[in-house]
Structures are given as structure tokens and as C-alpha cells.
């Protein structure tokens, strides 16, 4: 049943989520911007360029993928905000990250239902990469 409490809970959740986001998004975007503009990110990106180009992505985007896989979508979004990407590249990344993110925490959550987390994590990584290849090809 919808009560006043429903609205209060919703607003509370919303404000809490935005606060959690602010704590992640602003510093991570700042850090990645500094890494990018000082050229340090380019050093890392150069090595990953051949791999990421299969997905139509620049080498820097590897940072968004790794951070999203192991941390969460919020931090990955912060990386995306700091990079200069096309709509296609953002969509490829978004599809990959939507399918596979926050593996450690979500793995622990699903493990509570009695399902083994490692095969699920591998499934998510595999499907995520295949989906990225597919979207890059078809978009």
C-alpha cells in the first residue's frame, strides 16, 4: 500500500544514492581527467589499444571496463565522463557494463541464494565481451 512513508523512503533512497554517487563520481572523474591530461593514462592505453580496438574503443576505455567489472557502474560512469567518446563507443561500453559490473559485491549477494558465484562471474564477463563485440558491429 502506498503511504506517506513510501514517498519518504523513495526520496531518502534517492538522496542517499546521489550522495554515494557524488563521493565516487566527482573524485574519480577528476582523477581520470588528471591522468588523461598529464599523459599517464595514454601510456597504459597504448598497450591496451590493440585489444580495445576490437570493440571499437580507444585504449583508455579499458579503465572504464576494469573499474566497472570490479567496482561498480558509478565509478565506470565517472571514467566515461572524463574520456572523449562517441555515442557508439559509450553505447558499447554501457552494454558491456550493464551486463557485467560490481562482480565482487554482486557475486557475494548471489552466493547467498546458494548459486556458485564464480561460474556466474565468468558467464557475465563472457556475455559482456560478446555483447560489446556485437553492438560495435551492429550499431
Amino acid at each position, binding site marked *: *500500500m502506498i503511504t506517506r512513508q513510501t514517498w519518504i523512503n523513495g526520496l531518502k533512497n534517492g538522496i542517499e544514492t546521489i550522495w554515494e554517487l557524488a563521493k565516487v563520481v566527482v573524485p574519480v572523474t577528476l582523477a581520470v581527467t588528471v591522468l588523461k591530461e598529464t599523459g599517464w593514462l595514454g601510456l597504459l592505453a597504448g598497450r591496451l589499444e590493440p585489444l580495445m580496438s576490437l570493440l571499437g574503443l580507444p585504449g583508455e576505455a579499458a579503465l572504464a571496463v576494469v573499474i566497472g567489472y570490479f567496482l561498480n*557502474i558509478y565509478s565506470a560512469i565517472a571514467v566515461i565522463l572524463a574520456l572523449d567518446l562517441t555515442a557508439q563507443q559509450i553505447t558499447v561500453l554501457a552494454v558491456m557494463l550493464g551486463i557485467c559490473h560490481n562482480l565482487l559485491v554482486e557475486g557475494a*549477494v548471489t552466493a547467498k541464494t546458494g548459486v556458485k558465484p564464480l561460474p556466474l562471474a565468468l558467464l557475465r564477463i563472457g556475455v559482456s565481451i560478446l555483447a560489446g563485440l556485437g553492438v560495435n558491429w551492429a550499431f
Partner: protein
Amino acid sequence: MGFFFIDTVLDGLQAGFMGLKNIAVVVLPLMVAVELAKDSGLMEWATGKLQSLAVLLQISKESLLPLVVGLFAGLAFGSGILINASKEAQLSKKDRYIVAVFLSLCHSVFEDTLLLTAVGASLPWLLGSRILLAVIGSMLAARFFPEPALGVQNKPAEQGRV
């Protein structure tokens, strides 16, 4: 060099706060909407409407509520209900396995999708690919779930022959 660095920091802060603003505009109404959906019984209603999904994924009707809740409200909520439902309704291992495969590939569709759309991703691609792959993934999981004793009786091919 010093000015360059200050410029860089300002660039970074600007990108961060602009992004945060775009996200906040999405998140606040969304969280209210999710609470309204939960408390209004919309999840139960959607579960009623999605019975054919249970048939498609070969899961029991009892497993459909955790799936729908996880799909819309998030993995933590869905898993919570799944854990409770497992205790009360005696969900089979196969049910839990299929729901977990589905939800691990696709959950909190509103939040994740809108957050990523807020930074420039294409909504139909994002939502479509995720739901499609979750359906395919869990159908394959259902198809290949090793279930020696019960599975044989449940196979459509066996029923067809009789």
C-alpha cells in the same frame, strides 16, 4: 605548468559535477518510482502478467516474483526475496540457478539503464541487448541444467512421444 594543472583540475571537477547533475536528475525520481512500484503491488501485478515468462524460462511460478523484483528493483532485493522464497516455497535448485543466471545478466533495469543513458548511451540498445541476453542465457541454463532424475520426465520431447 602550474596554470596547466589548475586548468586540468577545473576541467575534471566540471566534468564530474556536470555528470553528477545529469545522474541526480534521473536518480531522485527513479528511486521514488521504485518505492511506489514496490508498495503499490505493481511487482505482484507484473508477476501475474509475466506468467508466460515462467514457461519460457522453465521456472516455477513461485520463482517469478524474485525474478521480477530483481529485474526492476535490483539484485539485492531480488536475491533477498529469492532467499526467502527458497526457504518457504521450496524452490528447486534448478529454479534458483535459472533465476540467478537471469538476474546476474539483467537486474535493476531502470536504474542501470537510465544512469548509463544519462551519460550518452543509446537506451534501446542498452535495454534490448541486456534483456535479450538474459532470456537467452537463462533458457540455455534451463536447457543444460544437469537434472538426471526429474529432468527426463519434464522433457517436452518425452511428453510428445507419449
